[in-house]
């Protein structure tokens, strides 16, 4: 499980053009297409992030695609159960490279509140199955958390951060 997608990503293209790559990455980072994919509570906060108030479109990531073949960002927003895990890995493998993963919420990071002795049904952290780029803690995280994750992802793709870190007032 999980091998196909990861393999493609580490290998990369055969010929690389440094300057062209830089431009393409800038374009990629500012037009991320996430996959419409809801698991649990965090999915509602993801929807809230896409709506008028938080408006994920400001950062170019509003085109939610129901098909994995058209998406390049997978937001794991909720608890991953053992029954759901094979489906998630399949979806991840169906996405074309380059692709990124945001683990949103404590469940996706480590199993969150549902880890206890003798648990029989959840995966304790999606990073055991697919590579994760950005982790967003919270139960559930606020939409601002998801927006900040997008900035982090942009930083990871392009190497620079376009939007300044807001001043802390407390």
């Amino acid at each position: 499980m999980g091998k196909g997608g990861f393999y493609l990503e580490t290998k990369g293209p055969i010929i690389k053009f440094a300057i062209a790559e830089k431009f393409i990455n800038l374009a990629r980072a500012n037009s991320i297409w996430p996959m419409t994919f809801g698991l649990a509570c965090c999915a509602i906060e993801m929807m809230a992030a896409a709506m008028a108030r938080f408006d994920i479109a400001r950062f170019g990531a509003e085109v939610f695609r129901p098909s994995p073949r058209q998406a390049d960002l997978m937001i794991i927003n909720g608890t991953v159960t053992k029954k759901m895990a094979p489906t998630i890995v399949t979806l991840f493998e169906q996405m074309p490279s380059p692709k990124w993963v945001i683990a949103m919420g404590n469940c996706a990071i480590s199993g969150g509140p549902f880890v206890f002795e003798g648990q029989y049904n959840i995966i304790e952290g999606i990073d055991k199955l697919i590579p994760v780029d950005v982790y967003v803690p919270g139960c559930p995280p606020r939409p601002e958390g998801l927006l900040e994750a997008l900035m982090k992802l942009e930083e990871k793709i392009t190497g620079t951060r376009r939007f300044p870190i807001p001043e802390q007032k407390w």
Partner: protein
Amino acid sequence: MVKTVFDDIKNTLKGVEISETSYDERGYHLAIESQKANIINIVEFFDGKGFYLEDLCCVDYKDYLELVYFFNNHKELCRVKVALKVESDKPAAPTISRIYTIANWYEREIHEFFGVYFENHTNLTYLFLHDEIDCYPLRKDRVPVTEDDRRLLNSFKPEEYEDGFFINLGPQHPSTHGVLRVVVKMDGEYIVSAEPVLGYLHRMHEKMAENRSYLQFLPNPPRMDYLGALNYNLGHVTTVEKLCSITVPERAQYIRTITAELNRISSHLLWVGAFVADLGGLTPFLYTFQDREHILDILEGIAGSRLTYCYFRFGGLYNDVDDAFIDATKQFIKHLRGRFGMYEKLVTKNVIFINRVKGIGILEQDKVPKYGCSGPVIRSTGIPFDIRKTEPYAAYDRIGFEIPTGTIGDNLDRYMIRIREMEISLNIIEEAIEKLPSGPFKAEKVPKKLKPPKGDIYHTVESPRGELGVYIVSDETDTPYRMRWRVPSYSNLMTFPYLAKGELISDAIATLGSYDLVIPEIDR
């Protein structure tokens, strides 16, 4: 009602042990001890009287397992608990799924979690659990899965079907509102049969309850139903309060009513947006979310979180509300009342919308007791059944409100009822704010470690989706011996195979959307 049922059972069913119980203490009126030989007769008796199967669950007492059936009546409150003891070694019981359709799923659930074999059950395959499970999770001792049951794991294989094809609706599908999977057998555009597959978000809440104290379990119920978090929180808290005989101050009761109703409106608002989005109209989604954000702001101010509120505590609240909350709520009521006109123009009077939902997914009134559905789904068929009226909790008995009902039980009725319910919720909030008394907001001297007396209790509240039941068995320790959640979406979804049969697939999507499903609630 209770008296007549008691006498009827005494007269017609000979040799049945029946006793009256205190409703205030136990939450049910009559208790029946049944045997394997007469359980079918008892269930048939209740079916004949028009009762519905409220819940069917199992408790492991180590020496024996006990199947617990709850029957209730939509017309007049009369809850009956029927207990059936089965041996813990190779447990088996007769199936009642021929009488009550919903029992089909309840029995499958009990089979996979406790290993109880139901004789003559048509399809005892696993509904919730994954393929590699090696024991029955809710048994107190570790019992490995038997060889017979191992064959039933993941046994769903679409048979060769030459005239048509199968479609897997989900688990990743935008219109299933989460991770529900429905295997649909198609004949062209028409559905031949639909079979939901659950368990893609089974998060072991019932098992967790047995591992934690009552207080530690507080954050879990809001995560079962994240849209109606406060109603679930309220269900848990009121049940434990009833079990431990804690009295809650009047001010807390009113604040509970106000916040629970605010939560109901936010849930319905999200549903309106999502339902219309399912049918292809994305604009209302943006508007309803905008209105919903106002409620989230108000509740965040007092509860501290945006979605999974855990605001109620045993004996009261986490903290008191201030004037800012009251002002914001009053302002919101005014704001939302102004928006209803816009929703009416945008959605309710939209010809395309009306044509997509009118006369689709009709649920007949006489079918309802077989499925045990509740909430807007049952009210759409014309039965004014609402737990807030039949078994008032919090401050609902001190506030006047009506129950909206539909006429034919189609998708349009379910839509209209939710819109009307939002208006009624606003009235409830307004009246509750007016009557809000001063005083303490939580009971004094509630111990940190609750140790309820021995016994069981069944308590219900009305969540935005319908009747939520909590059944707790206590053994005098600080952790529940068994905590069972009867969830509304589960029994509502059970009607889907019936309603979808023979429909166009695009109409079935509308029907599926009209239930207002929350998947973590179904899977628990």
